[in-house]
């Protein structure tokens, strides 16, 4: 195996995730795409950990998983809140930041 096969796989997943975050209108879909991004980062961490034969990669992958769990919890709560206030989770309608 070479290191790059994992890194390139992670890069592709990352880009797919970015596409999802930018293109989807559904708030829940955006959160799922964020999960994709976090996953690709985890692959990178673990691959480099294995490459350097160091435990830090795995440890941080675990931390990322924990943080991702927290992020999904909060994110879904926010989506629920938006849904309750607007009866829709279409992000294109949430434009209160308009300047």
């Amino acid at each position, binding site marked *: *195996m*070479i*290191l*790059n*096969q994992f*890194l*390139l*796989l992670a*890069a*592709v*997943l990352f*880009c*797919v*995730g*970015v596409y*999802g*975050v*930018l*293109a*989807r*209108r*559904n708030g*829940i*879909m955006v*959160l*799922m795409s964020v*999960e*994709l991004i976090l*996953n690709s980062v*985890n*692959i990178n961490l*673990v*691959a480099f*950990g*294995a*490459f350097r034969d160091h*435990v830090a990669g795995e*440890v941080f992958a*675990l*931390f990322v*998983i*924990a*943080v*991702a*769990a*927290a*992020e*999904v*919890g*909060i994110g*879904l*709560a*926010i*989506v*629920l*809140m938006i849904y*309750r206030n607007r009866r*829709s*989770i279409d992000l*294109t309608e949430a434009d209160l930041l308009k300047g």
Partner: protein
Amino acid sequence: MSSAGLLAAAASDGDLFVAQNVFFAVIAVVMIISAIRCVTTRNVVHAALWLVLVLAGTAAQFILLGSEFVAVTQVLVYIGAIIVLFLFGIMLTRASMGDDESVAGEKRLMAGLVAVLLAVVMGVALIDSYSDTRLVIEEPQRFSAVSDAIFSQYIVAFEAVSVLLLAALIGAIVVARKE
């Protein structure tokens, strides 16, 4: 950075780890297709199921990399908990049980451009830096090594994460509760 490229990269290795390379290539192709389906499908529930495939594939890659503990955690936390959370989220915002309204064309174009740009830059950087770096995995990481590291060297980070989880728990309740 197509799957074909990955396959080629895996096949060109040509040493004793043929089985691992084949395994990697199959999983990688499944993951990429599922990921793309996940962000393009109209049905939100289907998207969640495609996401399960990607996450499971990631766990398989972790095993390939010799990180069994992370793989197990990945299955437990992601597939076991986070996906369920997503399904609950979809259920509670029932509007989108079925079709998600189609993605606007201009937005899709913009997002696609950004993603392709990102892929090109990252791909060039990776190929430039690690084009023939070999990855030799002698033996899997032992659970005890991971736990030792977490509870000695990274104890502060560990505590911080546990506080973060607690804060997220409280925060989610506060944000989502009815007035």
